[in-house]
Structures are given as structure tokens and as C-alpha cells.
């Protein structure tokens, strides 16, 4: 296997189309985008000059952009936290042998099949912030159950409102994280557990020293997949609140800039988003590539 086939021609030929296509449609277009972000294409009038990083400085000087980053931060923390906690919890409960496991698995997983446009229709309504007589959605449930103190204005709350937007996102993706963890649990050889128990390990120690280390690659993958989705969140916010200041994140701000024909600004936000994603993804890709190499 070390030497592979006689020559590298055929394999390279097979993947060459993919490389060329992605070279154009991913890297070429990213390049085009970056070049717009360095120009003064701030309206429909074609760019006239190269302005360096001016658009970037202008953006970071904006209170509005900083606010959108804060929103994104709150959303990301709750989205990742929620999917990881529920995903792990469900997988952990199902792993231990449950009657009708298939039913639970399918139900927990199915929201993933639904588009944000469709789920936005119902979540927009569930997260309605009216309280008391006019309450509908979740607030109405609390009202009817006599849990009035739980009624709140959801995403309308200044500061932590973005945590409410994370609810539908968690609803949609916790099941996927569950499936990943479940496959992780199922992949731990029974001998390992048995061996640990033979050694008299307590349940906690079993988890601490055997199961968690075995699950950590899955957890990392889940983290990366959910994390990059979080940075790109767009459809969901548009479906629930449309683009308003209170729930603005960079991706929706980008949209506003684009619909105001400020191409340079939207390209700048896009590039910053791309950098965020790259900061998370590239070290991870390099790390995994190295780890793989070590493994031979």
C-alpha cells in the first residue's frame, strides 16, 4: 500500500475535474469576492479604485457590526452548547438499551430533514413574544400551565435574546449530534469496558478514562460541524425575525449591505466570515491530516 499503484496518473486524472471545478467555484470566486472588498464598490457604480483595507477598518469601527458579532457570539455559545448537551444526553440514554430505540432515534433526528424556511414558519409563531392575554406559542403554554413566570419576550430580550434564536437551531441539529455520539458509543469495543470493569473501575472512572477519550474525536467533529453552521446562520434568522437590528448577525448584515447595493461592504463582511470559519477549520484540518500521517 505504501507505494500505491504503478503511477499516479490515473488517480490524479480521476480527481482532476473536481480540483478544477472547486478551484474555480470555491477559490476563484473567493478571490473575486476579496478583490471587491478591497475596492470602493460601495454602490451600483463600478469600482474606480483600490482602497486597501479601508472597508475593513470602517466596518470594525461600526457599533452596528460589533453588535452583530456579539449576537453571533451569544448564538454560537448556546447553539453549540445545546446541541452537544442534548445530543450527548440522548445518545447516552439510547445507548444503554431502550425498547423502541428506533422510534426515539427517528423522532430526535427528523427535524434535520426540515428546511429553515419551513421550520421558521412554526418557530416564528412559537417564539412569539406577546405575553398575557395576547400570548401565543410557547408563552401561551406557560400561561395555560400556570407557569407565568416562564413567559418571556424570547429573542426580543435585549442582550440574551439570541439564545432564543438558538432554540430552533438546537431543535434541528441536536438529533444529528446524537447520531454521531451514538455511533461513537457503539464503536467502543465491549472488551475495553469489560477490561476496565475487571480492574474494578467505578462507573465514573470508566467514563473518565475509557469512554470519554474514545468519544473525543466524535465530539470534535460534531463541534466543528455545528460550529461552522453557527457562524453561517442566516436562513433561520431571516425566517423568524427578518433582518432587524436586534437579531443582526454578520450574515444578515451582509444581506442588508447587499440589498443596499453596497457590494464592497457585503464582500468585506463575507471575507471576515470566511476568515472566522478558516480560523476554526484550517488548524483542525491540518491537525487531522498530521494525526493521520502519524498513524500511517
Amino acid at each position, binding site marked *: 500500500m505504501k507505494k500505491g499503484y504503478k503511477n499516479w496518473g490515473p488517480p490524479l486524472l480521476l480527481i482532476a475535474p473536481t480540483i478544477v471545478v472547486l478551484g474555480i467555484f470555491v477559490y476563484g470566486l473567493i478571490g473575486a469576492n476579496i478583490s471587491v472588498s478591497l475596492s470602493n464598490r460601495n454602490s*451600483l457604480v463600478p469600482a474606480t479604485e483600490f482602497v486597501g483595507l479601508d472597508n475593513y477598518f470602517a466596518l470594525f469601527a461600526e457599533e*452596528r457590526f460589533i453588535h452583530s458579532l456579539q449576537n453571533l457570539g451569544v448564538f454560537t455559545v448556546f447553539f453549540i452548547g445545546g446541541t452537544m448537551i442534548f445530543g450527548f444526553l440522548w445518545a447516552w440514554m439510547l445507548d444503554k438499551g431502550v425498547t423502541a430505540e428506533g422510534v426515539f432515534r427517528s423522532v430526535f433526528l427528523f427535524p434535520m430533514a426540515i428546511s429553515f424556511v419551513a421550520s421558521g414558519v412554526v418557530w416564528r409563531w412559537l417564539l412569539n*413574544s*406577546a405575553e398575557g392575554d395576547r400570548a401565543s406559542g410557547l408563552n401561551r403554554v406557560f400561561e395555560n400551565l400556570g407557569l407565568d413566570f416562564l413567559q418571556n419576550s424570547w429573542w426580543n430580550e435585549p442582550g440574551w435574546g439570541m439564545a432564543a434564536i438558538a432554540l430552533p437551531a438546537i431543535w434541528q441539529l441536536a438529533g444529528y449530534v446524537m447520531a454521531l455520539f451514538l455511533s461513537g458509543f457503539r464503536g467502543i469495543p465491549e472488551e475495553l469496558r469489560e477490561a476496565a470493569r475487571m480492574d474494578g473501575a467505578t462507573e465514573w472512572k470508566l467514563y473518565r478514562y475509557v469512554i470519554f477519550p474514545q468519544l473525543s474525536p466524535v465530539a470534535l467533529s460534531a463541534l466543528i460541524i455545528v460550529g461552522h453552521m453557527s457562524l453561517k446562520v442566516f436562513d433561520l434568522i431571516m425566517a423568524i425575525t427578518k433582518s*432587524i*437590528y436586534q437579531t443582526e448577525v454578520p450574515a444578515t448584515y451582509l444581506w442588508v449591505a447587499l440589498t443596499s447595493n453596497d457590494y464592497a461592504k457585503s464582500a468585506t463582511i463575507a471575507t471576515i466570515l470566511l476568515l472566522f470559519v478558516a480560523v476554526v477549520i484550517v488548524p483542525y484540518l491540518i491537525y487531522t491530516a498530521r494525526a493521520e500521517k502519524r498513524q500511517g
Partner: protein
Amino acid sequence: MRKPLSMIAGAVALGLVLAGCSSTPSSDPDNADQVEVFTWWASGSEKVGLDALVGVFNEQNPDIEFINASVAGGAGSNAKAALASRLESNDPPDTFQAHAGAELTDYINAGQLQDLSSFYQDNGLTDVFPESLIERITVDGAIYSVPSNIHRANVVWANTQVLEDAGIDPMAAPADIDAWLVDLKKLKDAGVETPLALGTEWTQMQLFENVLIADLGAEGYSGLWTGDTSWDDAGVETAIGHYGELLEYTNSDFAGLDWDAATQIVLDGNAAYNVMGDWAESAFQQAGWTYDNEYTTWATPGTDGVFDFLADSFTLSVGAPHEAAAIDWLTTISSAEGQKAFNLAKGSIPARTDTVAADYPAYQQTAITSFGEDTVVSSLAHGAAASIAWSGDISSAIGKFGADRDAASLLSGLVAAADKAQG
């Protein structure tokens, strides 16, 4: 594997059958007998209005195929994004919908719109459209769009029952914002928790522009957009103060409500007033209410004699593939027949002054009268007053104020937005 394969085959067949149900035409530049019209009128009364307009168009031009390129959602924002990318790649629709006024600035500066002055001359539109409207839509001596309908944005919709219960005469409009605040307080004291219904960001912007008009007057307000009135004028500060006080009387969940949900609060009797454009009329009609009985309207306090206008209008693109047909479309839109068909369906009023008011329902009759007599100013929330980027900045500053109520920050935000826009 057999089972999944047959499933896939079945699904493809199903797809073909469903997709075959309707074959829709697409634009072909070589076929002169087509016109591609880009709008965000894809549902509701707007769609009904467009259909009525197309009906008239087909009657007048039976040989021309109408291609509906509508994009729905987000109060036109989806459409604007899609349109921008088409213009960007030199693939313009023949004619597209845009709010009349300053919102066209970007397209004009980029040379994407044809001057329609001679079209106005040829069709005698300069005589039948009110002079103040022509003034508002003329840019450096040129006119770039044809308005299809006029809406008014400075209207208070009032629930008469709620007002009477609080001992307020619903038919007498308060003279100014201060007088209105007195009534609002009276309502609150009488147990109406949220006397003034409010909705999401653009409805807040609309309320704010109403207060600006009230506190600055028509001339002062119009000056904000030309640079004649400074944004650090004392009147703007007063308006911010008034606006902040008004917010104290609104439903706390306003940021999450669309305009119709806000209007619904008035219909449900949980609020007495809603400041809304006159498309709200359809909500009251649908509830079966009659004008001056269960509900009434007046100009927002302090704006009597002012008509805060917004209009949908149609343009002629530079490089339109079917220019002649597009001009036919514009002719239909500007004709008395086309305007009547559209506006009766949509619930707005025609831009033409030769309208027979009696053909329209009660509310529209009042609007038609005001439109003929009042001073016309341009609406901010609906693209008539400021360029897209400028109104976007203002909208964000107002959205922020809705959350933090920081008056100083709103004022500085407004000044900064104006500085940026006016260079």
C-alpha cells in the same frame, strides 16, 4: 438495492408529472412580443392587484406575452437582492418595481434606468399627476419611473370603542403630539395597557418619521433629505423625545410583530391606535368593520394637511430586451383604466388626479381628497425620502433605540448616517 431504485424512479416520474402541470414562459430576448416585469407582488392583495393590472394589459396588448418575474418575501428585500444580482450581470428585466423617489438613486447613478420624461410628455402624464408628486420624483430634470399607486403613511387607525370607553372623542384628532400623549396617558390610566400598537423595525421607522413631520413641519422634514434642515436641529431632538415617550405606551413585544399583527391588537381592542400606512384598510375590511363606526382614521397628530406619500412605481431598464413592450406596460400602468383596476384591488389610490373618488370605498375617498389638497412629503420608511443605504442606517439606529432607549445615541446615529449619505 432494487427497492430504493424503484423509489427513485417513482419520485422522478412524480416530479415530471407535477412540474409538467404548469409550463411557464421565460424571457427570450429575440421574441419582441414579450415583456418581463419584475415585482415583489407575489401574494395577497398585491398579487390580486397585479393580476388585475395584467388583465388590463392583456386587453390592451393581446399580442404581448406577460412574463411575471416576481420574487416574494421580506417586504421586497429578497426581490432587491435578486434584482441587484441581475443588474450586476447586465441581465436586467425589461421593467422592475421600485419605490418611487430616493430609493431609485443608486440605479440612476449607475446609469441603469432610462429617462422617462418624454414618455410623460407623450402620454400627458405631467398634466394628470399632481405637480407636487412630479416634483418629488424628478431628479435633475429627469423622471425615471411611473407610479402605479399611491399610499399614505401618516394615518392613525383608531378603535372607536376603546376610545369612548376611556372618555375620549374618537372623531376629534389631537392637535399635536403633546395633546396625543395626554390622550395616551388617559387611556393607560383607564386600564388600556398598550394604547398604541407598534410592530417591527420598519413600522417603528414609520412612526418616527410621523413624529419628525409633526415636530419639524412639512418643509423642515423635507429639508432633512435635501440638506436644508440639519439633523442636529432642535426639532429632531424634540422628535426623539416625543418618540421615546410614545414607545412607553406601546406593546413591549413590538420588535417581533409584523404590521398586520400590530393592527390586530387594535382590532382586538387591546390598543386604541396604530400608526400605519393605508394598506391597513384591508385588515379592517376583512374584520367586517365599517369606517367611522367601529374604527376611524385621521392624519397623525401634528401632520394634518400633510400627505406622507409612498408609491410603487415601474422603471425602464437600460438595455431592456423588450423595450417597446415595456413602454406598452408603462402605458397601461399610467392609464386611468390600469390605475383604477390595480388600486381598487390593492386598496391604494391612483396617482392620477382625474380619478372619480366615488368609485372607491370610504377610506380611499378621504385619501384621494387629501392627496389632491395636502402638501406631499416623501416617506422615509418606504424608500421615497432617502437612498437605500441611508434609510438602512436610520432603520438600524431606530431598531437599536427600540432596545436600549438611548436618545443621545439615536441622535448621534442619525447625524452620522446623514453625514455619510450626504458626503
